[in-house]
Every structure is written in structure tokens, then in C-alpha cells.
């Protein structure tokens, strides 16, 4: 059974009075411990799909099944409880946290809200989470704005795995990081996937990164699926026009690697 099954998803917006389809009849599935990448140029509907899957916005049509249940049917407390299993990491790790927060508070919130640990156990849990993502446990007392961008994205990942999710949506999660930090974060994500069997919905415009982390890829163009399949196969030999354009735009260094 797939962790996430999206079928015929559609979302329309109005742009200058004209209705236009941000997401149009998109379907895909993600299996346990699998990484599905959504690729496509800006405005192709990648982030809108992420927000739809996370129920941050509502779809106009379509169906989302998460862990075998109709995710769109949930509301209120039932939805909030289910959210523990479906987490997200944002692109800009600074904007993703309350500017007043400390690292400890950011990690304390999910543990408290989903009754994962009692008040006295939480500091120990927080330290364990920080160590799990390769950070020093002493970082807990620091304010979010005091730590580096790479550390912040590690904290974001620690927060996402705090509730033991089965799926994490990564919306351009490594795009804002510099190259060396990006490699480390991708390593961490692969390691977490191997150990905790987490599935990733990995959104990126960078085919090099997708090739490194994703099992399958869905290439989007103007809200529709242009092509999909095994990540290496699609990137090595794209069939759609937009797929060819994306591959052509990727630096040669990555294309020529065996």
C-alpha cells in the first residue's frame, strides 16, 4: 500500500481576473521509504502541490489518500492528530521558524502537541533529536537567528522527524544552502530514510540533486504532468519537451557523470 496516493488533483487561481489552473489533473503515488521528486520550472505548480498535500490550501478537485485514509475528509482535531505523520521542511530555514523561538522551543512544540513525551522527558528527547541530525545537544538553548543556515535546516529536519512521520514534504529544502552544506543535508536525508523508512516528496528545480536522492521523478509543466518514471532513466533520456529543456539547463558536470 502506498503512503500517499494523489489522484486527479486540481487547483485553480485567478490571475488578473482570468482563471488559470495552477495544478491540473495531477496523479502520483509514493511508496514507503521511497523518494518521489517533483521537478519543473518556476510556476509549474510544484509548491502548490506541496501545499495541497499538506492541507495548507484546499483543492478544487481530486483525491488525496494518506496512509490508506481519505486525507481530505479529515478536519479539526482529527486532522491535527494525523498531521504528525506528514511533515514538511521549507526552503528558507530562517522564515520557517518563529523569529522569537529558540531551538528547544521549536523542537518542544511537536513533542508537546502530539503527547510524544512528558514535560520532564522532553529535554532528553530534544537532545536526542539534535544528535540524530548531527547537531550538538547544547544548541538547544540558542535562538534560531543565532545559528547558521545549515544548522537551521538540520533543526527543521529534526522538527519534521520529531513526530515519527511516514512522509516528509521537502519544498526546495536544499536550494538555499551552499554546495558543501547541501551535500551533507542530502546525506542526512538518505540516512534517515534508510533507518526510519520515511518517504519523501522532494520538490526541486535542480535535476542534479534529484538524480542524487530521488527514486522516481514527476516532471511538471504548467500544472500538468509532462512525464514521470525512474529518476535516472528520465534524466538520462527525457521524452517531453520540458524534460529536455530542464536537462539541457543542468550544468554539464552532472550530465556527463556515468
Amino acid at each position: 500500500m502506498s503512503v500517499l496516493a494523489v489522484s486527479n488533483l486540481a487547483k485553480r487561481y485567478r490571475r488578473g481576473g482570468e482563471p488559470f489552473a495552477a495544478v491540473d489533473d495531477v496523479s502520483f503515488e509514493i511508496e514507503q521509504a521511497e523518494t518521489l521528486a517533483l521537478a519543473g520550472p518556476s510556476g509549474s505548480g510544484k509548491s502548490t502541490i506541496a501545499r495541497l498535500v499538506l492541507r495548507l490550501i484546499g483543492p478544487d478537485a481530486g483525491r488525496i489518500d494518506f496512509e490508506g485514509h481519505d486525507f481530505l475528509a479529515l478536519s479539526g482535531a482529527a486532522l491535527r492528530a494525523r498531521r504528525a505523520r506528514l511533515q514538511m521542511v521549507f526552503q528558507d530555514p530562517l522564515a520557517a521558524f518563529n523569529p522569537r523561538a529558540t531551538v528547544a522551543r521549536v523542537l518542544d512544540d511537536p513533542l508537546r502537541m502530539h503527547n510524544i513525551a512528558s514535560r520532564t522527558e522532553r529535554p532528553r528527547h530534544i537532545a536526542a533529536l539534535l544528535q540524530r541530525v548531527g547537531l550538538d545537544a547544547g544548541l538547544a538553548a540558542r535562538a534560531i537567528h543565532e545559528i547558521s543556515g545549515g544548522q537551521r535546516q538540520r533543526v527543521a529536519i529534526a522538527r519534521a522527524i520529531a513526530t515519527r512521520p511516514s512522509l516528509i514534504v521537502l519544498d526546495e529544502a536544499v536550494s538555499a544552502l551552499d554546495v558543501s552544506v547541501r551535500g551533507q543535508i542530502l546525506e542526512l536525508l538518505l540516512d534517515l530514510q534508510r533507518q526510519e523508512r520515511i518517504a519523501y516528496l522532494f520538490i526541486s528545480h535542480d535535476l542534479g540533486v534529484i538524480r542524487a536522492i530521488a527514486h522516481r521523478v514527476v516532471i511538471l509543466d504548467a500544472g500538468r504532468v509532462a512525464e514521470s518514471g525512474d529518476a535516472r532513466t528520465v534524466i538520462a533520456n527525457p521524452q517531453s519537451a520540458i524534460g529536455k529543456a530542464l536537462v539541457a539547463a543542468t550544468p554539464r558536470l552532472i550530465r556527463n557523470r556515468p
Partner: protein
Amino acid sequence: MNRLRRFFRSPEAIAGALILALLMMMALAAPLLFPGDPQAIAGPALLPPFQDWPLPLGTDRLGRDVLAELFHGARTSLAVGLAAAAAALLIGAVVGTSAGFAGGLVDEVLMRITDAFQTVPSFLLALAFVSIVGPSLGVVVAAIALGAWTGPARVARAEVLSIRERDYVAGARVIGMHPLEIAFREVLPNALPPVLALSSVIVAAAILTEAALSFLGLGDPNRVTWGGMIAEGRTVLRTAPFLSIVPGVALVLTVLGVYLAGEGVVESTAVRRSLS
């Protein structure tokens, strides 16, 4: 503390802070320096100031010690001003945050109520409220807050509208935080700085409104107020002008001090905000 140093760099802010500190000391020292009822008769009636050492500012029409009344009046003015402003900021922040965060019908209803309160002159509102419920300190505070919460509500709403679209609010929803907790723990604290910037204006206006209510005889009758002292002195304005001038000057200085100190705080934080 950088902000503190920046605050004390401007002479206006220092003057304001000094006036406020003096006022605080007057308010706190009143029961120590002038124990007993300030409204008790202390000497001959209408004694001019600087004539009699135990009564340095003289006495009023009934022979009450003007200096003692001035000190005890500072207590009332400050208490009412601060309490009314705190209540107005609290109501405004909660209403504005609820309206901005909930959106839709809730926003519409709350903002039309805000409009309704804003179209009625706040002094008339306070006047009507006190004359119906009856004058006491709590009622006066409520009456003033009733006319002053609309400004903070509008500012808070505008700020919340921009904050609620930020990623960290989406992040809070993703981890399953309750909407009320998101609104009041994640959003409200970050919307507060521009709302708090209004506080000096509101405190100053509250002190003036309290004085005006007392002047019209709608203050708490058991407390000395500067407005009440001016009203008392008004009947003998030609023969004993100092009875109106002394509390009048105190009132002017207080409002000035609150304004200057408030401006100083806003200035020093504004620089910090633009730098960060």
C-alpha cells in the same frame, strides 16, 4: 543594552523619562509623605501658596492641603492612565489578531464593530458609560478603554495579515498546532511592536480623558484627581487662580512626559528594527 543607550542619547527622551520618574515617585510617596485623607481639612481656606511652611502650596476653598491633593492625584492619574491603556491594548490586540487571523466572516464582524466604536467620539462614549454605570475607578478605566481599543485593533490586524502568510505560520499548522495557539503564541507576539508604539499616545489620552471626566464631576468621588481639583478651583478662578494652575501644570507635564518618553522608546526600537 544598545537600545537603552540609544534611548538616553536623545534629550527629549531623557526629559520625558525624568518627568515620568518624578511622577512615579510622587505617586509612590504620596501615602508616606501625606498619610491620612488628602481630602481632610488641613488649615484655613484659600491660603495662597508659599505663605505657610507646613502647607507649601496653600489650601483650597475648603481648606484642604493642595500639595497633598497633588501627590494623591498623581496616583489616580497614573493608575487610570496605565490601567486604561493596558486594557485598551489588550482588547485591541486580541480583537485585531482574531480578526486578521480568522479572516472571512469573523474578520468582517469584528471590524464592523471596531468601525462602530471608532465613529462614536470616545469622550462621549466614556461620558455616557460612566453616567449610566456610576463613577468609580474601575468604571472610569473601562470607559476610557472602551474608546481607545480601536486604534490598537486596526494596527494589530494589519500586522497579523502580513504575518499569517509567513512560512513559520504554515509550519505551525503542519506540525498540528491548534489555530488559537498559532494566533496568540506564534502570531500575536510578533505583531506587538507597532501596537505597543501606540501606548504612549493612549496613556496620554487616557490621563486627559480621566481629568476631563473628573472635571465634569464623573470621577471617582472618593479619590482626589487633578481634573476634580481644576473643577474645584474653577469657581474661584479670579481670586485664587493657583488652585487651577497647579493641577493644570501637573497635567500638562505628565502628558508631555509620557509623550516624550514614548517617542524615545519608539525611536530607539525603530532604529533597531530597520537595522535587523
